[in-house]
């Protein structure tokens, strides 16, 4: 199916004409001609995949409602906002290495500064592991405000907004700030919030069996071959250590490079974001290589990767079934309102892959293909990432319910035929999703 559609919108004061085609799968970036490398130049944190931050502004380019129909129900799954790194181990790896090198007087003046910066970051993160940051709260406030402003028909006076969060504190906090913000826009919303173990089975299902088996020998072989040329950073070693050859005994170059880079980029999520010293140590290609390494791993873990049987996205089968069941019952109501769910990227990414949103159901055994075919995970699950399913009808009696999918608040595609893109007939979407679950 090749459907070309012209959309005109104003961005940063300029009028940009965009050819929207299914070959260019990205609705997330402002222009489709961009490469991953371009995106990293614009925003280095893009290279850190799931540590990527949510865009600060979202182009207001939604297609008008289909003729005669109005939005009446919104179903959502969102990731918590920017957080501190979940556990100490990620930071400890490079920190222990550099501390060891420091103890034997092997740091250059730049190395000293790097060590100091790392100490600052460590002490800033102490007692905050995994917690939502201020920036994470801002992201959720903005998203919530836009939700109400973009769909006033759904978020109208007395509308029911029922929220479910996983039991993880940063998700609960994301839900809370989002709902407080919604009340700021429309104080008459009827909001309920639940964070219960009871819903974990679909809100945060981690499939042990799938997870245990994703790295098949085949996948491992392909992955090793793919990353071998992209690991390591002798330039960085020269920069930080007096005698890179000698410190090799205590500093593993590949791990040091990888984790230091992550540590630097991670600060874009915290209040250290103005201090880009660590991030600036790295050249674009070094960041780019890390993105490639991580993107490939995320694909093997959660994509329809042929190297391990392509079943990883089915980890979210319970969630998808729940989304369908919820929609089925909500459509029967006069004014269903909205159902918002707050969870995690390890749920959102496989769900997007399972549903084939924006071509993320890409099935291949070649990791080299990921980049050219647009399987860029950083665009799917930045901190605060979200999927919104917006349902339209003319009246509660209307049998032809339409829906559209917004990925990070931008219209997205599904791999099924439609005569009203970006809208789809709910009946088609429903049977397509059920077929994926069989």
């Amino acid at each position, binding site marked *: 199916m090749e459907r070309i559609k012209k959309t005109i919108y104003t961005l940063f004061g300029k009028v940009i004409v965009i050819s929207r085609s299914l070959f260019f799968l990205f609705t997330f970036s402002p222009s489709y001609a961009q490469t991953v490398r371009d995106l990293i130049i614009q925003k280095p944190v893009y290279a850190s995949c799931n540590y990527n931050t949510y865009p600060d502004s979202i182009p207001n380019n939604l297609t008008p409602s289909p003729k005669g129909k109005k939005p009446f129900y919104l179903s959502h799954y969102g990731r918590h906002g920017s957080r501190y790194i979940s556990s100490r181990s990620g930071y400890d790896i490079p920190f222990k290495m550099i501390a060891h090198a420091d103890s034997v007087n092997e740091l250059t003046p730049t190395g000293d500064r790097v060590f100091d910066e790392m100490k600052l970051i460590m002490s800033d993160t102490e*007692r*905050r*592991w995994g*917690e939502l940051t201020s920036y994470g*709260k801002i992201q959720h406030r903005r998203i919530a405000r836009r939700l109400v402003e973009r769909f006033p028909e759904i978020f109208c006076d007395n509308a029911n907004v029922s929220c479910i969060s996983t*039991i993880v*504190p940063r998700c*609960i*906090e994301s*839900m*809370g*700030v989002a*709902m*407080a*913000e919604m*009340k*700021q*826009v429309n*104080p008459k919303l009827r*909001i*309920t*919030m639940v*964070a*219960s*173990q*009871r819903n974990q089975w679909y809100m945060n299902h981690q499939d042990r069996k799938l997870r245990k088996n994703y790295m098949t020998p085949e996948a491992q072989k392909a992955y090793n071959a793919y990353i071998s040329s992209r690991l390591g950073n002798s330039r960085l070693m020269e920069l930080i250590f007096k005698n890179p050859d000698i410190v090799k005994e205590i500093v593993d170059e590949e791990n040091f490079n990888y984790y230091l880079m992550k540590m630097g980029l991670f600060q874009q999520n915290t209040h250290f974001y103005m201090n880009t010293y660590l991030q600036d140590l790295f050249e674009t290609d070094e960041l780019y290589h890390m993105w490639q390494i991580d993107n490939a791993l995320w694909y093997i873990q959660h994509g329809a990767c042929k190297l391990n049987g392509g079943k990883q996205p089915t980890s979210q089968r319970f969630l998808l079934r729940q989304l369908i069941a919820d929609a089925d019952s909500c459509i029967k109501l006069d004014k269903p309102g909205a159902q918002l769910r707050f969870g995690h990227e390890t749920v959102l990414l496989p769900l997007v892959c399972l549903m084939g949103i924006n071509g993320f159901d890409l099935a291949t055994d070649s990791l080299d293909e990921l980049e050219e075919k647009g399987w860029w995970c950083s665009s799917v699950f930045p901190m605060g990432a979200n999927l919104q399913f917006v349902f339209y009808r003319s009246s509660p009696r209307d049998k032809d319910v339409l829906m559209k999918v917004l990925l990070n608040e931008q219209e997205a595609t599904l791999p099924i035929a439609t005569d009203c893109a970006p809208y789809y007939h709910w009946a088609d979407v429903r049977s397509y999703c059920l077929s994926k679950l069989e």
Partner: protein
Amino acid sequence: MGGMLIMSAMTASGQTIAEELMADPNRAAGNFYALPIGKMPKDTPAPEGKKPFYINHYGCPGSYYREMQSIYEEPYAVFAKADSLGKLTKLGKDVKLRLDLLRRDATGRIGELTTKGAEQCRELILQMVKRFPDILTPDGYYSCRSIVQNNCLMTLEESLVQLSSMMQPMRTSVMASHYEDRFMDPQDKVLEALRWDSLTQARYDRFLALNTGNARLMESLFTDQNFLIEQEDPEVLSRQLFVLAGSIQHTDLANHVTLFDLFTPAEILGHWKKLNAKYYIQNGACTLNGGTQPFMQRATLRNMIHMGDSVLKREHPMVHLRYVNENVVMALACLMELDNCGLQTDNLDALADMGWKTYRIAPLGGSIMMVHYRSEQGDPDVLVKVLLNGEEARLPIETDCAPYYHWEDVKRYYLRKLYRYENIRLNEETKK
């Protein structure tokens, strides 16, 4: 003498403890009592010209499911086994069904805020704003904090959402971080080690024995007492049933299921006394273990004083809502000696008579609010009043305008109290 005893057994409302528990058996749940909402407490008008400008609030989580699945499962298991062997009376069989309902209701919700809890949180915020409308202004600052524990976090979120619905625009800040545990959930190993020293334990055990009698209850439930004793200590089972009885009020099963009907008023009083004494030993100034347990919350009180000073120069109103564990609120109330909370005694039997009752101190939804008043920005004579669970509380400090107190006096009294204790600790540590 007898007359005096009867007098002292009367509470402020003129009721004896037995009457209070009869009037609302849910109170017997102690600190697991749900602070009733609906009736808004009355405020003594502030001295002329003074208006509230800062509320410093430490609240317990709202109604929640008990914190362990075993609380629901263990008593059920005893009844299920007894039933399978035909050892239950008719009442026992009925209780088994009730326990089954309770455990199913709680499964997957252990420790979580209940729907009643959510309503309660919102209602309490509504009441706060109704009582102190001056505190809500577009220039004000509203900071909501919680410990990192889901029932407190959800209490925070419900309160925040309620607050947010009451004024637009509103500047709110939210935080739930282990970073603030140092005063929101303080730990002190020295005090913890003192809490249940052997003398205290022995005295408490004797108190338990004196207040225990489960034969009637067990005979009403089980047909074979020998079988029962093989399965479970009747005192343990009786306590488990009592704890569950007090927990139902928080759930949607309230008004549909009860377990209080199993107990006589005397048994309810007995169980309550035992639990009350336990919490007194753990959080009150009980002289058995040195009377220092309330100092567990010294960092919290210090933060309260620090905040009181920092807001003096503020132009616009501010509210701090902090949600912490019930035991933090309980010990803080004891440390601040609010009403009768500062009670120092070794007489576990007389706690109720002397007004130390957990359900009056830190029920679910309960709070300590210090409300600061002034005539204008820079007013040198800031007044405060403290609300314990919404009711104006008495402080151990002299004042000419009760229930209002001069901030400088309040600060001096509490800082001295803290210094005195911290000096003792310092001396002890240097001796080592």
